[in-house]
């Protein structure tokens, strides 16, 4: 149970995060402006701020996936696997004429080759799988790590990457922007927008749903005595509203009888767009904006 010792060490450290897709719990909503209502205290970097390596490690611990495959060994094992195994088991070990290996007991019951080496040396002659006893232990270990890497690539969704999302048509995207965006925005809004984000999917996300800090919801609150408070909303529920006025003062107001609350959301047109946006239009606009370096 060495596998579990390792996971326990990981778990003891820092797993205060919310996986992009928590099995059984679904995807969280898109607006995390204040982060105030998360159920778990967020002392650690949030999932979206983690490096890819941190994400993969955190997800591996959360899912109980066991030790990390040795990437260098897996890379050495790749050509060996392709040469000796892929014809029957498929290039990614997902099955071809012979079964897929990534869900097999032999692979999943192994950590770093300690069981697989014995198995590969023998083969399974009764089912037509030859012995690989002519390979060195180092080579068989590398093949084992390659198989573990195939499992990791599938099972650790914290290590997933979006592909090249730039699939749209720039010209159609420009036309969409001209037709739909210019009643609120000016051409300058989009100047150099293609160089402001670290990846096209960040760009896509950000033009559809821009930064909350630049687009705060404001409220006008009419108090029972007739006075009026207004400002930027920090929190609102059925029972209380907290806002910061123009002088920087915070007001927390119980929404009792006679208290009127009017909210103004500058992103309401974007929310309306999200509810009806077509995939083609989304792809086209992203492709167009990406050209505005």
């Amino acid at each position: 149970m060495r596998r579990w010792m390792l996971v326990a060490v990981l778990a003891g450290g820092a797993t205060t995060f919310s996986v992009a897709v928590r099995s059984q719990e679904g995807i969280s909503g898109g607006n995390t402006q204040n982060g105030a209502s998360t159920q778990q205290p967020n002392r650690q970097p949030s999932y979206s701020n983690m490096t890819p390596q941190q994400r993969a490690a955190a997800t591996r611990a959360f899912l109980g996936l066991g030790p990390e495959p040795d990437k260098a060994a897996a890379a050495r094992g790749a050509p060996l696997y392709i040469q000796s195994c892929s014809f029957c088991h498929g290039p990614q070990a997902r099955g071809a004429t012979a079964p897929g290996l990534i869900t097999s007991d032999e692979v999943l019951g192994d950590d770093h080759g300690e069981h697989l080496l014995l198995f590969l040396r023998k083969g399974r002659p009764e089912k037509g799988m030859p012995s690989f006893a002519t390979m060195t232990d180092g080579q068989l270990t590398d093949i084992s790590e390659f198989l573990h890497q195939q499992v990791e690539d599938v099972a650790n969704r914290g290590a997933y990457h979006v592909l090249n999302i730039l699939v749209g048509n720039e010209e159609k995207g420009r036309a969409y922007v001209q037709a739909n965006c210019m009643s609120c925005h000016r051409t300058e809004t989009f100047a150099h927008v293609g160089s402001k984000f670290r990846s096209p999917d960040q760009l896509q996300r950000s033009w559809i749903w821009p930064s909350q800090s630049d687009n705060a919801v404001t409220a006008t609150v009419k108090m029972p005595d007739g006075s009026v408070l207004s400002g930027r909303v920090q929190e609102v529920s059925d029972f209380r509203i907290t806002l910061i006025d123009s002088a920087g003062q915070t007001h927390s107001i119980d929404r009792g009888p006679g208290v009127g609350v009017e909210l103004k959301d500058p992103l309401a047109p974007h929310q309306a767009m999200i509810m009806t946006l077509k995939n083609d239009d989304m792809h086209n606009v992203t492709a167009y904006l990406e050209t505005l370096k």
Partner: protein
Amino acid sequence: MKLVHVLCGAVVLAGFGAPAFSAPDVNLDPQSVGAPPIAAWPTFNGDYTGQRFSTLTQINTSNVYQIAAQWVYKITDVGAQRGAPVPVIKCTPILVDGVIYITIPDHVWALDARSAKELWRYDWVDHGGHLVGQRGVGVWKTNVYFLTPDNWLIALNANTGKELWRKNYADARKQYFSTSAPLIVKNHVIVGVGGDAMDMPGFLDSFDPETGALQWIWWSTPRKGDSALKTWPKESVSEHGGGMTWMPGTYDPQLNLLYWPTGNTNPVFAGQGRPGANLWTESVVALDLDTGKLKWYFQVSPHDTHDFDNTTAPILFDRVVDGKPRKLVAQAARNGFFLTLDRVTGKHLVVKPYVPLDYTSGLSPEGEPIPIPDKDPSVGGSINILNASNWPAPSYDPQTGLVYVNSTEGKAIYYLTDDSAKPSGYGGTGTGIGRTTRVLQAIDPLTGGAVWKHVYPNLNSASTTVGPSILTTASGLLITGDDQKNVIIYSADNGQILWHLQVTENESGGIITYMLDGKQWILFGAGDSLYAYSLPR
């Protein structure tokens, strides 16, 4: 709100000459389960219907403002677990013979219902599995049953917590994990399983409550010789097709049928390697209690590619429709459709969206939503709805005739991250976009339309599971909460807020009610604490 610690009070009330504390004497007659729960809450849903409706009326619309916390039990000595820095009570508490059983992953507590004194505690050291939640125990005679993250069914003595036997039913290395509460019916312990990281098939097991012997197994995807295989490209794909059974189902004693919701298809977001409807994932299935044989199915999300994970409770109720008495089952599905079916035949009466959605082109002749392929996850991204509901329990009130559900309205961009011909695992990802609105809905199950809605104001997008289960009572109360730590009691007929209280965390599990010593109690978990409310003495 004043907290009255009644630990001493309970001793006084026990009477002169009586022992200060009597040992627990739990012994649940399996024949008694299924009746409306009054002095007990012996199953996940209280009874077998899934209605989560209580006939109790002591706490009512005119005195509810007086209720006060009588005790709070806080879990103080369990540290961070994998993926969970603090304990979160996601179980529905079980109450039998004055003993409350609560769980988190790897841990069970038995508490004295009068004082919250800990009677015993059982700790498990897991070797794998996913610690995302634990829904509670099952009780049979003097036994308690508990499922561990790494898929052990553990039988404990209900009075001492001593382990009687254990049985492993799934391999955690294949990413099977367990969070469910076992459903106990007659001499069957029905156990469902979770786990969709590695393309394994779902199943439902039935075990003997005395010995743990396997009585039957039902696989949620078809095997060789089954006509349902035509909904898969080939058997080897069906054998890796998912359809987990991780929430407790419901049961009709007259028909002797279990109603079980089945989870998402695998691979999760990448459907290109599994053309077809992919039965019986994403369905409500009716199974014979004694054999596990499939009687009928209704597939809510044919060829799911959005992790619509159809695990919300199928609620059983009877109604007169067009002059005829009908036995019905309703579900506010995670894919955004509300359905009402005839639970004898599985034929649909109502299939209708209850959140704004545009990913279907209509219904099949069987009433099943037809997905639009362009809405599938894609390399460039595809916009679709977030899960409209989730595992927190809905409720049906036979007096109003309405189904109540906390729903989520919002969108996500779904990306295909594996565009190969043979994807595996999740094969994609989703990221929420825009505002997410949580809406409490009162839905007429005979029309699928909302009679009233309550939109919870909030600037922050909630996770689809924040915001708790629902309980309704015969005195017209609807008890639930928002995602800003407020416990809220509504008038069930019109949605008016009657009472609220902010606690330290969001309500996180099931809400139960029961009579104890002549008083009605309301019990719920929020974060690491269990709260017990009643009218003041």
